[in-house]
């Protein structure tokens, strides 16, 4: 079933951290509790007297709400109270909008006010003594709707006859921006061929973490503070959204998370539901608990951005040298802008993909439709753009009868070009893409491709190979938000850690992050143990996040491939401070200079005389419990906090130019598919994933991320789709119809890696985890390759369920009409 080969590292930088725990696959600290069912996930938390929240959801994709009558629900035995949109509009202000006008004008509350804009949108909430009763009562809430026409196709959103979702905005075009770098006219003048692609489509899906959203909210009337026990993965963002809306300072919002059952970006935008819970906890004077069920999640939470690429033109030389492209990206944000329109700039972190073309124009238009709101999903906005650039490569190669492998190699940014500044001022830090491609091809058995093709043909199958190459840009410069809205006062990034030495010698690490399976407790402990010269078992990393601990910063959370840089950067900084203090303290006790002290084997000892040593326990005890007589000027607390701040400048808003992210991990995947030409059914028969995320702190953890992202990509490429009918009903609201990969769907996988240390980070690490989009591109490319002899259809959609492959097989011409090659 599975065979995994890890190739030898091709580039290994010797670093200081490589000697100890770092670089090794040490066992995970998280596993003991998780394996015994003793993790604490949000729905596991209970409080005395808590009430259960159930949301009343709009059945209509678009409807005026004429009235909401909760009287029957309130009479139902066991019901504790309700909340309506009208109440919410009185008690809160609309959420802050990231967008410049017209998107800025949206009035978004925690419940629908006056109008429902997607099927499944919460309209009211009911609280009762049991979960079942809350649902019973929710059915008794009488909502009078006046159904309105819905618009579910972004391409129709700007038609005169299409309904406008938000009257305040006056249009469904909520944000647009023109990005242009280089000299397009010159590029097209120089081109031998211009390949025109009329339309490509990145489908709507998300990573469907197995645990849905939830919260338990308590309100302390004495202090006016809410404690929000939740699985939101970006509390820093939730706080910024919620505080102003609830008209309170951020100290009134205490966020607590422990174990989170997967996030993948989909747990960033639960702030509307959290606000509803806060209002209910205050109104009902008791803790309230909300658990989102699977159907609720599919209907209403965090769909990945759906994007159309219209009227693409690619300038290319006869030999396949790519000169540039222009296109219009039409992004479908769904009904609300809950994290959008940041997707309108995030893609620009990877503007040229992995290629050296310098002349690029992209007109970005984002529209709202009567579908669930979009928010980040693994590979957020870059995945869509990289799928597009990879599709260009394969289409150009096929149309020009060139080898897609050669076209990639000819155009890849070269190892010797690193660090490479892209046309829009981003700096790719390191990497060797061509080398990765060679490794991937070797792993997938490229040499035997033609033999295998013939063998498949003899069995009545069409075999194809496809490559997907991507970047996983990590550690955002939030200054890029100014390209969306110059008024915004965000830039840079930060993360926090505290490391302390406690009274009995315990090392306690507190992170600002909110991991959802990324093993932060383990990797942080590896780094700390190495730096303090102690056993990893002596390092206690607190599970989860609690904004009470003072270990959080404005951008705290776990998102956007950054822990290995920001999280570990903070851990490293705090540990360095602590190590310095420990040495200073030891030097005072031992009567020497701090420079004479080393930390090793759980002791602070004199380098020259290791017998003169203080165990960590002694250091902890002296400062915390036995400190009389210490010099007055000894500035040692053994409790160190460090904020890591990556070296960013705000980008140039006028030119839309600047470094938008710090690190660029890379992935090259290769897939082999076999298609049954009679049905369009296909199978991925071989798969290779090569990853380069710089120095790996824990190779097993890194490989786990690569595997998981790959599986998600395979799901997205094959069956996972949030498809709506024209009335705005979601047709895939559960795991019956939304088919995620099962164990039997998995192809054999071989993995390989490179380690190109990042010159921009202290340990050479790069953020990683989101590069799996490569799998979508690889499967699309493999399908197009497999179908070449069957009328040479163009794979134009990111999701290719059997029916779409059948359509390509039975009518290749329709897809071919999307492409036109002009010779110059």
């Amino acid at each position, binding site marked *: 079933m599975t065979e995994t080969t890890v190739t030898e590292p091709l580039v290994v930088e010797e670093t200081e951290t490589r000697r100890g725990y770092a670089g090794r696959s040490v066992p995970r600290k998280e596993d003991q509790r998780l394996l015994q069912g003793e993790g604490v996930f949000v729905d596991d938390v209970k409080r005395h007297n808590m009430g259960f929240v159930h949301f009343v959801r709009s059945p209509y994709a678009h409807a005026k709400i004429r009235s909401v009558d909760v009287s029957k629900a309130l009479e139902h035995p066991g019901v504790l109270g309700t909340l309506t949109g009208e109440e919410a509009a009185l008690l809160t202000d609309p959420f802050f909008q990231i967008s410049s006008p017209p998107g800025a004008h949206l009035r978004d509350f925690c419940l629908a006010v006056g109008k429902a804009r997607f099927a499944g949108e919460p309209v009211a909430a009911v609280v009762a003594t049991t*979960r079942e009763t809350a649902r019973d009562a929710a059915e008794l809430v009488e909502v009078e709707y006046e159904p309105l026409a819905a618009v579910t196709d972004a391409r129709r959103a700007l038609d005169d006859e299409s309904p406008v979702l938000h009257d305040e905005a006056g249009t469904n075009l909520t944000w647009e921006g023109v990005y242009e770098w280089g000299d397009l006219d010159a590029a097209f003048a120089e081109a031998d061929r211009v390949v025109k692609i009329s339309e490509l489509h990145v489908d709507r899906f998300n990573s469907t973490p197995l645990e849905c959203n939830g919260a338990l909210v308590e309100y302390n009337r004495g202090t006016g503070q809410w404690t929000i026990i939740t699985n939101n993965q970006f509390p820093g963002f939730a706080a910024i959204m919620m505080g102003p809306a609830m008209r309170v300072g951020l100290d009134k919002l205490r966020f607590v998370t422990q174990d989170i059952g997967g996030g993948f970006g989909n747990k960033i935008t639960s702030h509307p539901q959290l606000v509803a819970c806060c209002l209910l906890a205050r109104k009902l004077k008791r803790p309230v608990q909300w658990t989102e*069920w699977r159907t609720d999640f599919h209907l209403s939470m965090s769909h990945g951005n759906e994007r159309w690429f219209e009227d693409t033109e690619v300038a290319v030389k006869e030999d396949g040298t790519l000169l540039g492209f222009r296109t219009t990206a039409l992004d479908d944000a769904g009904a609300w802008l809950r994290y959008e329109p940041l997707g309108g700039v995030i893609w620009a972190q990877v503007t040229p993909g992995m290629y050296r073309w310098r002349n690029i124009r992209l007109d970005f238009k984002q529209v709202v439709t009567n579908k669930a709101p979009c928010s980040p999903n693994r590979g957020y906005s870059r995945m869509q753009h990289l799928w597009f650039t990879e599709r260009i490569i394969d289409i150009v190669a096929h149309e020009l009868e060139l080898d897609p492998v050669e076209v990639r190699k000819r155009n890849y940014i070269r190892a010797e070009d690193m660090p490479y500044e892209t046309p829009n001022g981003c700096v790719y830090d390191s990497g060797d893409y061509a080398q990765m491609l060679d490794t991937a091809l070797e792993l997938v058995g490229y040499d035997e491709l033609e033999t295998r093709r013939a063998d498949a043909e003899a069995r009545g199958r069409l075999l194809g190979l496809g490559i997907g190459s991507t970047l996983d840009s990590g550690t955002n410069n939030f200054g890029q938000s100014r390209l969306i809205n110059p008024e915004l006062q965000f830039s840079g990034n930060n993360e926090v850690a505290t490391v302390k030495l406690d009274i009995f010698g315990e090392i306690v690490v507190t992170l600002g992050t909110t991991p959802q399976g990324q093993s932060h407790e383990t990797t942080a402990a590896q780094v700390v143990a190495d730096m303090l010269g102690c056993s990893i078992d002596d390092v206690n990393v607190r599970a989860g996040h609690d904004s009470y601990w003072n270990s959080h910063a404005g951008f705290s959370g776990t998102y956007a491939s950054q822990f290995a840089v920001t999280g570990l950067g903070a851990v490293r900084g705090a540990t360095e401070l602590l190590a310095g203090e420990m040495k200073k303290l030891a030097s005072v006790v031992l009567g020497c200079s701090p420079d004479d002290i080393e930390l090793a084997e759980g002791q602070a000892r004199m380098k020259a005389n290791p017998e003169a040593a203080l165990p960590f326990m002694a250091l902890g005890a002296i400062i915390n419990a036995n400190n009389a007589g210490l010099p007055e000027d000894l500035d040692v607390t053994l409790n160190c906090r460090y904020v890591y701040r990556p070296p960013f400048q705000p980008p140039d808003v006028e030119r839309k130019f600047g470094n938008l992210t710090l690190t660029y991990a890379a992935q090259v995947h290769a897939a082999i598919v076999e298609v049954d030409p009679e*049905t369009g059914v296909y199978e991925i028969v071989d798969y290779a994933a090569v990853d380069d995320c710089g120095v790996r702190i824990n190779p097993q953890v890194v490989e786990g991320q690569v595997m998981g992202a790959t599986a998600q990509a395979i799901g997205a490429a094959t069956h996972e789709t949030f498809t709506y009918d024209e009335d705005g009903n979601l*047709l895939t609201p559960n795991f019956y119809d939304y088919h995620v990969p*099962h164990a039997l769907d998995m192809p054999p996988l071989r993995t390989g890696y490179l380690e190109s240390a990042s010159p921009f980070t202290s340990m050479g690490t790069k953020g990683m985890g989101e590069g799996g989009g490569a799998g979508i591109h690889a499967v699309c490319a493999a399908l197009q390759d497999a179908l070449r002899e069957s009328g040479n259809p163009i794979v134009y959609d990111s999701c290719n*369920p*059997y*029916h779409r492959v059948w359509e390509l097989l039975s009518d290749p011409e329709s897809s071919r009409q999307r492409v036109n090659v002009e010779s110059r």
Partner: protein
Amino acid sequence: MLLSEVGYVRPETLEQALEVLAEHLGARALAGGQTLINVMKARAASPEVLVDLGGIPELKGIELGADGTLELGPMTTYSELIASAEARARPILGEVCAQIADVQVRNRGTVGGNVCASDPTNHLPPLLTALGAELTVAGSGAERSVPASEFFLGVYMTAVGPGELLTKISIPPGRADGFASVPIGVDGTCIVNAAASLNGGARIALGCVGAVPVVVEPESTEADAVRGAVRDAGLEPPSDVHASADYRRHLAEVVAARAVQQASERAA
């Protein structure tokens, strides 16, 4: 999750079960619950009373008669059927049951529940139709036997009327059977499926193309004849997110031919 309020009773005999069903018009039989409980979670259907058939011994068991007829108690789980030596008399039964959902569902789900749910994507309605099974239905009056081809009346509707229960599934002897499907992924819901049996003339029953299995009887087992017969059957399959009506019509031809081919190989 979170069902509506529902009455529950677990009778110990068939008579008791029929009595409760007759008493409560809103009562529904609860077999393995692997469909019904999910429908109740969605609150798409809310029976007033669930009559749990799990405690009735006479609804269980697999017997192979002297003439080769296989008699299945409707409360036989898929796993029991797969493991049954008797059931191997008609190998296709175990093979198809092994394709249903997953281990957990096969451990709990029952053959009777599968046919009585009559979901158009289920495996057993077309299979039993193709095999020429007879289903015994008991009510307050006499038992009656209904051929599978007349048993399925619609989506979620069968010849088992109010106050009645399916008590036995009888399958005639034979080996020349086949089954083919196109599921979503390797093991998801069927997009189209087909069962074929060549025991006395070729009979194909197609699933997922209408409310009930569609029977097609081709003149020969040649692929072209089979496909032609399916084409001529005037299928009106539904369109949904997984397949258009046209694609389903096409797949119906392909899976029918494949099921017949498998059956032919076993007839040889």
